């Protein structure tokens, strides 16, 4: 198995939290804070507890087939109108997670934000004022502005169904990143029926993302080391704009250099890659299974 991609050490160093050391003027460090957060967020999302080096179900499937299958499963979770079918897809997600040796804790971490967001969003759906029906909880005189506030059976099922659907889709989608190295991800994408132009641009976007964060972080630290007093709001805004522009210019220069490097090696707009191995029996089984699930979800 290929070694897991690791960021260089400088990227792993935790930057001091400006808010804690500053004490006052919480607004001062918004750029620094954002960058420090962004850096740890990127690192955690892309390099934390990744199961791509382990032996498992998804890891054993050719990357592009793996990605395609997951997309099909996400589509079926987004398509079904049947609670039993959705339950079946949840079970499928759980089995894949187990068989691919992705920890449920990692999966939960990935899913948590979407879950919380959608839960809050769908709260009103639980209640009788949004979904009229048989009251199962909080019935009686309780209410706001004379409206009765109670959870209805219909409301509960409606909201729970929506919440489960959204959560399952995020869960399934997260399995791609959890079981795939970066190299495999982009190689897999290039073998999907997506224009190679787009996948190459996608990969370069991914790379520039890190470069931009690095440039911005350096700039922010350089400024931090010079600025002692609390900056005014307008100065913060100017700082933001000048940094954003600086990043744009630095990276345009870099982009032109990259472009030359590609042209220098014969690139003329069409990316060519070595085809990976053909599909194995496991790949066909996986694809067949996911297609089966999506057909079921169309039927139900």
């Amino acid at each position, binding site marked *: 198995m290929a070694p897991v991609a690791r960021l260089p050490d400088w990227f792993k160093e935790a930057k001091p939290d400006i808010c804690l050391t500053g004490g006052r003027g919480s607004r001062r460090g918004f750029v620094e804070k954002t960058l420090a957060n962004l850096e740890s967020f990127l690192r955690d999302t892309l390099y934390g507890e990744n199961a791509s080096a382990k032996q498992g179900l998804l890891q054993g499937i050719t990357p592009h087939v793996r990605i395609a299958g997951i997309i099909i499963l996400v589509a079926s979770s987004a398509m079904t109108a049947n609670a039993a079918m959705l339950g079946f897809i949840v079970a499928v997600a759980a089995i894949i997670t187990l068989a691919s040796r992705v920890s449920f804790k990692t999966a939960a971490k990935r899913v948590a934000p979407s879950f919380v967001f959608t839960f809050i969003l769908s709260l009103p759906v639980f209640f009788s004022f949004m979904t009229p029906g048989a009251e199962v909880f909080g019935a009686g005189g309780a209410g706001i502005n004379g409206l009765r506030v109670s959870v209805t059976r219909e409301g509960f099922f409606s909201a729970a169904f929506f919440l489960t659907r959204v959560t399952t889709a995020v869960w399934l989608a997260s399995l791609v990143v959890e079981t795939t190295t970066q*190299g495999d991800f982009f190689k897999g994408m290039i073998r999907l029926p997506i224009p190679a132009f787009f996948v190459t641009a996608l990969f370069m976007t991914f790379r520039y993302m890190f470069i931009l964060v690095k440039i911005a972080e350096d700039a922010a630290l350089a400024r931090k080391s010079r600025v002692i007093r609390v900056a005014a709001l307008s100065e913060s805004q100017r700082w933001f704009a000048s940094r954003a522009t600086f990043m744009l210019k630095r990276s345009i220069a870099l982009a032109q250099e990259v472009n*030359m490097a590609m042209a*220098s090696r*014969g690139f003329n707009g069409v990316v060519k890659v*070595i085809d990976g191995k053909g599909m194995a029996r496991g790949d066909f089984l996986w694809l067949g299974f996911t297609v089966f699930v999506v057909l079921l979800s169309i039927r139900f």
Partner: protein
Amino acid sequence: MEGKEIYRLERVCYNYGHQGVLPPLSALKDISFSIRHGEHVAVLGANGSGKSTLLKILNGLIFPMSGIVECLGGKVAEATLTGAFLRRFRERVGFVFSEPDAQLFCPTVGDEVAFGPLQLDLPKDEAERRVNELLNMLGIAALRDRPPYTLSAGEKKKVAIASVLAANPDVLLLDEPTNGLDPRTQVWLFELLRGLKELKKTFIIATHDLSLVEDLTDRVIVIAEGHEVAADGPRARYSETRTCYWPRI
């Protein structure tokens, strides 16, 4: 083959900012020289004297405002660098950028090395073979599936060089090749270049590294701060009169 003219430059001028509002910034002025097959040329000059610009012109990546660049018997210009000539040119001339971060743009080291051969329409198994051989030769076979930007500076340089050598060019353009390398990797690079020299490859190195000049090149072109050629001659002569050139670099 030996001694055949590869490059001929005649009164080449290049300015930056020629389309913008700012006054154009001269980068190269009146550059003329020719380079023969098997020559090993060092291009010396201060920061900003136009060395990198010159190499980019030699690689057909940018085109001079005026003057003529000829390579392999053809004119290198925006209009002529197409089709079969472009392919031949890209096959024969390789460019190692000073900034490996710019040069390495593929998802994995293996893809990076395969990029050139594949773009030049080599059969896929031949590309595969070249990748394997090069990675083994440079001792970086273990890095094959790693994303290039996670490598060390020395490893990046090795991958960058491997990715250029994969097309098997006759002419190598190297921009500041020893920049940012530790002594061990520098020694490795010297040995590699010495090997290439024995294979009668032509190379043109833009550098500040005087040990590189003395060990590996036999001709020195000095570009002065006025962006024109200040001196051009055999390395031996340059060494003797080093004190004479030195203040001009």
